[in-house]
């Protein structure tokens, strides 16, 4: 079953751009990315859009659809009413390169600022022992496909370029939480660093990030809030911090 749909696609570059109307066929079972590809193949050969896996696993095709940050490959056309015009625009929090493609290098810079995993110095290959229940907390955050939709929607940086310098964003709060909860990680003070260096305190837990996460990671409830709570606790109680690390290490080895 094929129907004609109306789309408005933002076209332009870092200097200027505008929404352009197109009328295009959509078949049963298709997603927005399919239709964008049809526009590309039949009407706008040079329309720029990022995509890779087309299965919601790589997080490349992040755009805004009717103003909402979404993966174009996971947004079914059936979600829209017959006569609805579908507006597709680039991610607003990042500078446009061309059409629907934005410069997401901000995220790679932030990734570089998060201290890496630090295993016990004497850990030998194959010797680690961890319980499933203990790895699951971090595994939830490692489901992240780095689509950066949470970064895009976060109001701390969405319309506040000036905050980008001091704010890592939800993607990297879950990275810090993942390492903080990692049974083998030995680096101390991750939560404190999140607070002091990566702008955890600027988040006022509106949960917008959780809502847009295509992997359904409970960013706010399971990463940000626990870190916010414990950063206050532990900050003034070094004995408790040390205790937690020693216990952890005994489980590992």
């Amino acid at each position, binding site marked *: 079953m094929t129907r004609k749909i109306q789309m408005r696609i933002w076209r332009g570059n870092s200097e200027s751009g505008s929404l352009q109307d197109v009328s295009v066929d959509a078949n049963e*079972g298709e997603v927005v990315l399919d239709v964008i590809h049809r526009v*590309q193949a039949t009407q706008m050969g*040079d329309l720029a859009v*990022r*995509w890779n896996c087309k299965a919601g696993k790589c*997080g490349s095709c992040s755009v805004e659809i009717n103003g909402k940050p979404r993966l174009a490959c996971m947004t079914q056309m059936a979600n829209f009413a017959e006569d609805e015009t579908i507006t597709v625009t680039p991610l607003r929090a990042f500078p446009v390169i061309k059409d629907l493609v934005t410069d997401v290098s901000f995220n790679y810079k932030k990734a570089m600022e998060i201290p*890496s995993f630090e295993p016990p110095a004497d850990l030998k290959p194959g010797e680690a022992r961890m319980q499933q229940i203990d790895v699951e907390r971090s595994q939830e955050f*490692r*489901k992240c496909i*780095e689509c950066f939709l949470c970064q895009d929607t976060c109001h701390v940086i969405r319309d506040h370029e000036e905050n980008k310098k001091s704010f890592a964003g939800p993607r990297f709060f879950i990275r810090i939480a993942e390492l903080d909860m990692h049974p083998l990680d030995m680096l101390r003070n991750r939560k404190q660093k999140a607070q002091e260096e990566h702008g955890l305190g600027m988040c006022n837990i509106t949960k917008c990030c959780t809502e847009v996460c295509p992997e359904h990671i409970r960013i706010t409830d399971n990463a940000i809030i626990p870190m916010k709570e414990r950063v206050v606790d532990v900050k003034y109680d070094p004995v408790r911090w040390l205790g937690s690390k020693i216990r952890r290490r005994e489980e590992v080895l």
Partner: protein
Amino acid sequence: MSTQQMERHNYDIVVIGAGGAGLRAAVEAREAGLRVAIICKSLFGKAHTVMAEGGIAASMGNVNDSDGWQVHFRDTMRGGKFLNNYRMAELHAKEAPERVWELEIWGALFDRTAEGKISQRNFGGHEYPRLAHVGDRTGLELIRTMQQRIVALQQKDKRDHGDAESHIKVFAEVTVTEILKEGGKIAGIYGYRRENGVEVLFEAPAVVLATGGVGKTFKITSNSWEGTGDGHALALKAGGNLVDMEFLQFHPTGMVWPPSVRGLLVTESVRGDGGVLSNSDGVRFMFKYIPDVFKDKYADNEEEADRWYDDQSNNRRPPELLPRDEVARAINAEVKAGRGSPHGGVFLDVSTRLPADVIKKKLPSMWHQFMELANVDITKEAMEVGPTCHYVMGGVEVDPDTAAAIGVPGLFAAGEVAGGMHGSNRLGGNSLSDLLVFGRRAGMGAANYVKNAPAAKVSDESIKRAAEKIQAPFNRTGGENPYALHEELQELTQNLVGIIRTKTELQEAIEKIADIRKRIEQVSVSGDRQFNPGFHLSFDLDNMLLIAESTAKSAIVREESRGGHTRDDFPGMNPKWRQINNISSFTGKEIVVKQQSLTDMPTELFDLFDPHELEKYMTPEEMTKGGVKQ
């Protein structure tokens, strides 16, 4: 836009591709003290490795301690129907556990056994539970761990040298159009930035190809747009060889509905964890398709097959877990016989086999994928599945120990782009381990080569020639549309070089490919160089065409059926052909395929097998010889 600026870089090693193999190679080369550029076609961390679901095969023996490298080696050779490069299969089986444990030291979090070790799951063709995994998103874990390992090394370089990118730099969204040689040796590569079309020259004495597969040559594929055989084609054009390009793995279970996701992978773990295949008559049909060579390993009745999930020592495996080529052919046959599902596949059901909460825990991405893309709840109903072009066993002919490409000094290849390791058919789970084992070896091989190689210098003539090639599609007007040509190519490969092949169809394919080859020279693109997908496709198309030609020409000469190559006109295996690799090379105008003898296994490996099993594959002379004494 005829006069373009050009960026110029100089490195010890350039790695093309940022999937598991490329990143592992880069880590190894960096740790050997060298300066490495990593080039990827998309953003860092998006490579096709993320799509791998089931796990990494490594005989750690955490779940069944009877496992060991010898058993893994046997399974791999058996799966590849003994056409594998034995040395690669041996290195792979021996080194895979170390590579998995190393990932853990770099921060990977695999699922655990009750004792807290890395858990291992069953998979097609593997005798014991062998696949280290994270639910059904193991590829994501692998790529993220490697990506974060690169970042960790960069952070160290920042501390030690004041610049995070002093020794490893990632160049994202760059297309490589050419490998440059001077005096017969690698001197660098040429390409352009996808973002703005600016041309880039990398001078380097060593290049590691880690570009993955060729799936986009076919219409129904599980591969992303990146799988256009770039590395295969670059190697051919640089004077390298491809080995056995007729062997393509059609994964038995791809989605068949809706059309927009046709080909998208349904992980083999669905079957490993208990899922069964049935046809429109409700018959669990795989029992009919157990080939003689596997009869003693696979259950021929439902009762025994079902008991196996709980007691693997006293029962044979369910036939749903036969190697992928067998299952794909069986599904194909059922559909052809009119016993298919409504959308032209068969049914794969896990809903009647496991409780809903277990399905969601063990197969979370599959549950999502079907719920969100097909409105099917796999905890309540069966999936519809059919074969999809998934993996190319053929690839660059390399030296097993160093991953050096034969015939091109300074060129290395690892991962899917390299050939030989998997023979005629790859076992599930052996790809991720392949990436790590041979990624590392390619990094080492390249590092050792560079230490004795003179500094690379690319001549101005080479640069000029490479630049002209990039500009060419813009200089033509009103020529062929690259999208239309790509579709035409996919249609013909799917229909004529697909899962079942015949001489007449392959002949037709070769003629049609030659015709497209002429027309591709007239491809013109609209717009400018800024992030222009039509422009990008014009280069990918040229690569895919070479792949299609190499596949069709290798397929027409191999007059037998083995693994990922099925000839309707030659249905059986022929021991004579087991001794032969088809070697493709490029004359500059066309692909030429020559036959080359396989190296015999040494006695110590030969003796790992039951002679009765080897007899099914080998000639009497080979059996008498019993391998090569060392």
